[in-house]
């Protein structure tokens, strides 16, 4: 009961979820996990390894993301980027290591709705009979379940007023409100991304996972997406984005995470985007020697 009251108060202030839960643990704020005080760590990954049948896709990955920062993951295909996202969305279990999201285990953070996911374009069936409005409304399903009482069993269309308002606000934030009754198949590439971004906003999550949100997006949509992301950052949300667009990454990322099975580098774009780091990321370990060999042969 108390929790519910607390939550609704949070909502009025428009704060992302997951804040109070951590901040409430006053005793913990001085305790440190790794390098950073716990209260400022949004996503902590410690010694994470994961494998499918065969060698590990992720090996001893450790990093910490602070609240309100945009971290962009760069890495070649098969570097473990999507595996990392699968772990954070609960689709894959880890072989070893620990992950915490806003001070919770992944399972608890998912159940509380702290994790929002913006999918890659290929992962969605665009012929699915669903409208823009209903897609964004799916962002509220977690909240409906946790707070809706008996209404959790009713169709989402009969949702609470606050859910409708949140959906409308999220659609307005990405300038897609006029398209709310369109089927999702009738949207352009950039509009599709914006709808799913709106869904993440409607979820009021503390951590947003963005899987290639810039692929196939025109300039106008890209600017709009970054505007929205900046605002989300300012509200204290943590953004973790996978992209292949090096230029946007350099321009917009607070920090970059170079990943290829393990963390190659994590830091500001200036620090991280060195020749050696990139070589190591794309070619694996011991880049200098191989590079030297190539140049002597030529």
């Amino acid at each position, binding site marked *: 009961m108390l929790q519910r009251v607390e939550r609704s108060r949070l909502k009025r202030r428009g704060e992302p979820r997951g804040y109070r839960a951590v901040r409430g643990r006053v005793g913990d704020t001085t305790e440190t996990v790794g390098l950073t005080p716990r209260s400022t760590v949004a996503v902590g990954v410690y010694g994470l390894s994961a494998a499918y049948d065969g060698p590990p896709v992720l090996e001893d990955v450790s990093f910490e993301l602070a609240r309100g920062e945009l971290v962009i993951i760069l890495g070649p295909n098969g570097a473990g980027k999507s595996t990392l996202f699968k772990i954070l969305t609960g*689709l894959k279990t880890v072989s070893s290591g620990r992950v915490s999201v806003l001070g919770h285990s992944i399972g608890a953070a*998912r159940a509380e709705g702290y*994790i929002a996911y913006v999918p890659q374009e290929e992962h*969605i069936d665009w012929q699915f009979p*669903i409208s823009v409005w209903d897609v964004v409304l799916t*962002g509220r399903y977690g909240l409906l379940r946790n707070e809706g009482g008996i209404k959790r069993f009713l169709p989402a269309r009969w949702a609470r007023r606050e859910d409708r308002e949140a959906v409308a606000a999220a659609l307005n934030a990405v300038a897609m409100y006029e398209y709310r009754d369109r089927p999702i198949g*009738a949207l*352009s590439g*950039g509009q599709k991304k914006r709808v799913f971004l709106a869904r993440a906003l409607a979820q009021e999550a503390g951590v947003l996972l963005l899987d290639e949100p810039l692929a196939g997006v025109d300039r106008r949509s890209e600017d709009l997406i970054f505007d929205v992301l900046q605002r989300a950052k300012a509200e204290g949300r943590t953004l973790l984005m996978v992209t292949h667009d090096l230029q946007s990454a350099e321009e917009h990322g607070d920090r970059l995470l170079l990943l290829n099975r393990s963390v190659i580098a994590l830091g500001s774009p200036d620090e991280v985007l060195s020749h050696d780091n990139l070589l190591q990321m794309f070619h694996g370990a011991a880049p200098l020697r191989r590079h030297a060999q190539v140049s002597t042969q030529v």
Partner: protein
Amino acid sequence: MVGWIVRAATGLYEVGITATEALVRVFAAFVSLFPAVISQPFQYAFMQRALLTALIVGAVCGVLSCYVVLKRWALLGDAISHAVLPGVALAYLLNLPFFIGAFASGAASAVAIGAVERHTRIKEDAAMGLVFTGAFALGVVIISRIATSTHLMHVLFGNVLGVRLPMLMMTTASGLLALACVFLFYKQLLLYCFDPVHASAIGMNTGAIHYGLMLLLTLTIVASLETVGIILVVAMLITPGATAYLITNRLPRMMAIAAGVGTFSAAFGLYLSFRLNVASGGTIVLVALALFVVAMIFAPYGVVRRGRALRPARP
């Protein structure tokens, strides 16, 4: 304790039978309001029961067929429907209601398919092929040993004209149960079909939804066996949904249209089969298919108008 349970179950059964009987009466009175050309075949009690069964099956299959079409589970539906055969045979052997056996073996095979897929490198389609042919073969073997071939024919091709009250009651109950599940878990099922990653990210148990939907499908298939039979039930689990998918772009509307297509084909198919004196299960499926062909040509997402409907909007 046991005696109390048995008494409660018997009592429930009797109440159910009485209610079903009343339902048939009311329904028969309703049908008799139609012009004689239509209502004439339905003055027989067996035709009334058949029509009511077929309508329920048509509606429930129609609703579930939307998930089958959207989730691309057509082959899975086929697999489960074939896999209920050994359950039916064993239930006959043990003198149990065939409902129970069919549901148990359908559910077991659904789990077995998932297990083969998850724990080996065999892909889903091969896993289904393995399990459902295996189960079907087992069913054929058991039946060849114990029962007459008419019984096998009824299970394979349906026997809607021979539906008795207990069977109609079971069909009604499981149909209502399936529809209630779809209503109560609409959000979970929608999200699981549309974007399972998001479903998982907001803490839904996608494994439970997956098997839940499979069980729902099994329940529907078992409820439909008497009407269209094992071989053709999958048609009722694909055709209405496919037809509706060509007509609309909203899932609730799609379900309503699919239920309409299902009930209409059930009723009209039954009527035609009576008039033409042909097999009712096959006729029902053919009527549904005819509706699909019409939709395929003229519907908003059909052949003729397709290009215009899905053109991307200007940003």
